[in-house]
């Protein structure tokens, strides 16, 4: 008799979910954002199907304003584990005049993230997409099922969710419907970090502190990741020791000042922090139901 730890139980549950989808869906895909949650998901997927490789491709929605280190990490990981990668991107952003400096956050995320994602899912005919959503992230997520159904236009209907009992998931879908599956629904931010530390999962170096060129704007510390960053009059990049708790488009993602360069101190900082991880994201600001609205429109 052995008392399983909570991480062992969470891992077993996630692996079970991966396998159910692969057994029942026709054409699954994994949304791979290259962030820490995606890295844990990929690790779990590799465990679920070992010694086979994960039997589905990775889909990365690139906004065009991704951190360079993130793209490097993506390409390295894909090559190392021999994964199939699909990159979805809004090719017409420049023509449409969409960019993170002039475009409002709602329109920006719609044009650069939500629309390319929906387009890619439709184009490749994926009927199930794994996503790294966690229920502890936000109130709207707390009520989302592990198997979440989307209409042909990828909308979420929170009032019409299927009950999920025991560990039985109903993957039967109607024509044109697709499923978003969240294998790490029951993990918390602490679990994610602890698991990364325990399993020695390779993550993007941006999560570790390092001297980086930064500017401070609207209360956020932004990293000047390349020369497309539009400096305002009198703004001079300053070198600060910073790291990220969450990764989005670099001109929209706030860094935190830190000296943490290893897992233990990162977790220590996270536990002693007074703000939630989404605080660094411009997208969640505005009214507090905003995540729910975005989800209904098809945001992951």
């Amino acid at each position, binding site marked *: 008799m052995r008392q399983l730890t909570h991480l062992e*139980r969470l891992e077993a549950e996630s692996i079970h979910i991966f*396998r159910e989808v692969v057994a029942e869906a026709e054409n699954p895909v994994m949304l791979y954002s290259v962030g820490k949650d995606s890295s844990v998901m990929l690790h779990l997927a*590799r465990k679920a199907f070992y010694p086979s490789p994960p039997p589905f491709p990775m889909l990365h929605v690139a906004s065009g304003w991704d951190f360079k280190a993130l793209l490097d990490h993506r390409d390295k990981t894909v090559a190392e584990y021999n994964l199939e990668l699909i990159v979805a991107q809004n090719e017409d952003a420049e023509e449409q005049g969409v960019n993170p400096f002039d475009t409002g956050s709602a329109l920006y995320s719609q044009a650069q993230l939500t629309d390319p994602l929906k387009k890619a899912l439709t184009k490749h005919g994926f009927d199930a997409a794994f996503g790294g959503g966690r229920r502890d992230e936000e109130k709207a997520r707390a009520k989302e099922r592990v198997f979440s159904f989307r209409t042909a236009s990828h909308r979420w209907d929170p009032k019409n*969710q299927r009950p999920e009992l025991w560990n039985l998931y109903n993957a*039967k879908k109607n024509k044109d419907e697709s499923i978003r599956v969240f294998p790490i629904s*029951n993990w918390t931010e*602490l679990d994610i970090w602890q698991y990364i530390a325990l399993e020695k999962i390779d993550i993007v170096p941006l999560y570790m502190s390092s001297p980086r060129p930064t500017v401070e704007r609207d209360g956020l510390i932004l990293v000047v990741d390349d020369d497309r960053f539009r400096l305002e009059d009198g703004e001079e990049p300053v070198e600060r020791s910073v790291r990220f708790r969450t990764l989005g488009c670099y001109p929209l993602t706030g860094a935190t000042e830190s000296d943490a360069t290893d897992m233990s101190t990162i977790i220590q900082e996270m536990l002693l922090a*007074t*703000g939630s991880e989404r605080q660094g994201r411009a997208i969640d600001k505005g009214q507090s139901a905003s995540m729910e609205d975005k989800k209904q429109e098809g945001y992951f």
Partner: protein
Amino acid sequence: MTDHSPTQDSSFQTEALIAEDIDAYLDQHQHKSLLRFITCGSVDDGKSTLIGRLLFDSKMIFEDQLAALHSDSQKHGTQGEEIDFALLVDGLAAEREQGITIDVAYRFFTTEKRKFIVADTPGHEQYTRNMVTGASTADLAVILVDARKGILEQTKRHSFLVHLLGIKHLVLAVNKMDLVDYDQATFDAIVADYTSFADEIGIERFTAIPISGFKGDNITAAPSGAASPNTPWYNGPALIDHLETVEIANFAAQARSFRMPVQWVNRPNLDFRGFAGLITDGAIKPGDPVRVVPAGKTSTVKSIATFDGDLDEAVAGQSVTLTLADEVDCSRGDVIALAEDPPEASDQFETTIVWMSDEALKPGRAYWLKLGSQMVSATVAEPKYEICVNTFEHLAAKTLELNGIGVAELRTDKPIVFEAYAKSRQLGGFILIDKFTNATVGAGLIHFSLRRAQNVHWQPTTITRDDHAALKNQKPLLLWFTGLSGSGKSTIANAVEQRLNLMNRHTFLLDGDNVRHGLNKDLGFTETDRIENIRRVGEVAKLMTDAGLIVLTAFISPFRVERQLVRDMIPDGEFVEVFVDTPLEVAEQRDVKGLYKKARSGELKNFTGIDSPYEEPENAEIRVNTVEMTVEQAADHIIAQIMPLK
């Protein structure tokens, strides 16, 4: 009255450990176990407040969330100037405006000893569905009661539901003790009231705790272990302390015989064939003898393959991949089990069904049934009764509406591997899926199989049914003659057998009257007995076709569903339904055995065609009309159909 919050102390201690020795903290956290529980209560019992308090006390709320909470409290709050913890957990915008939770939400918090997943479910009547969903994965239930109101109808309903779903640990949290001046007599009266109710519905044990979610009394114990100074008369554990020490259901599951439903067959190359699944019960080691059910083949475990290397042992709750020593047939839906104690397989069950759809249950209609990794077609009979969730009375019912709970027989189109729900949640709980909308419309619990041969496992034999048939140089068949009493079934079947015999075919005729002299002499003519009569004949006929024989049976067999039952037992193409079509008035006129006369006079009850229906076959393979044909013509016609000239 002072605001008592001992919880701050322990949270400060944790914080100190994090700051001073993060590695020690991580080591501690890494070894925590996981407890899942559900909170149930009425709209006003303070459930969301309690959960908000647990999250707050365990530091799961960040400042930015707290700031949003402050502004929300001003806008929608019900606690005046105080922080309304309830707003922290009421997720969806629509719900926030109504001030009630209307779905299942999952929350997380952690203490020094355990991590917790809380299913937060609403209390009002129309949402039985959500409570059952939340309870299905919980180890423990916290039933909240408002100290001012005592045990309400809803309290009883929630207790009944969590008990139905097999939750072994119940906590009766008598909340809002601050509003009754922490009065012991009030608490004792509520506990006494609940005890008599618990006895009534079979709840064996529960733990009662006087708390205030709002003020924080008895949520966590003081470092000394003492209860809140406001309730000096209370000697039991504080809520968190109880949650930290109660036994987790997974622990009990490990003590049972090994079972693993196969989810997926892993075949990366010709050298590796692994069976992937989540172990639901027991433990397994390389070398352990296992049986693949329902087929029944045995083998031994060769290895427990994982990404982290082969394991020496795996236990219930782990997801693994097993390789076996022998090449045995095994695919998704099969269960790998301890060889000497495998689970049963059956296709007829007594079940409790919870209906979860706006569209009522349609008895007799085919739904998908998912149990473990098995997906089969299933039909539910008219409920034996519906259970009123308020009075627990058994009510007559023809169907189940949304949130209705009833006991009904269920039949699947092929045998499934199962355990009684009381023994195993994972192999005894199932969902029903509408075949047209694909929605999950019901959940069910298996109580027992309606089949008798429950623990007999199929013994694979070396000489197969094909070998038997090949030796006789014929294709086995079951000619199932059905029709009214006096229609001529036995006479025609007899004539057909004579012809087959002349053709050197190996045959056997099972006649209704003859079988009732021996094999079925214990059966009468009630509906149940008539169904059993046909079932036994079907099984005997099946064995005879396995032996390679052409079997002829002559039974009235008035019900389509029974004939279908036999058809399903026999391999495709070997069941031939022969409808001996004789109008009632002709059969009654013949009345060879004088039975119609007796039935008309009331001497014989349940006589087919008189006071019991005959359901004509809809798609019989062969139909003979005995008004237009002689016995010889009918027999020739049947032979021509089954033995076409080459």
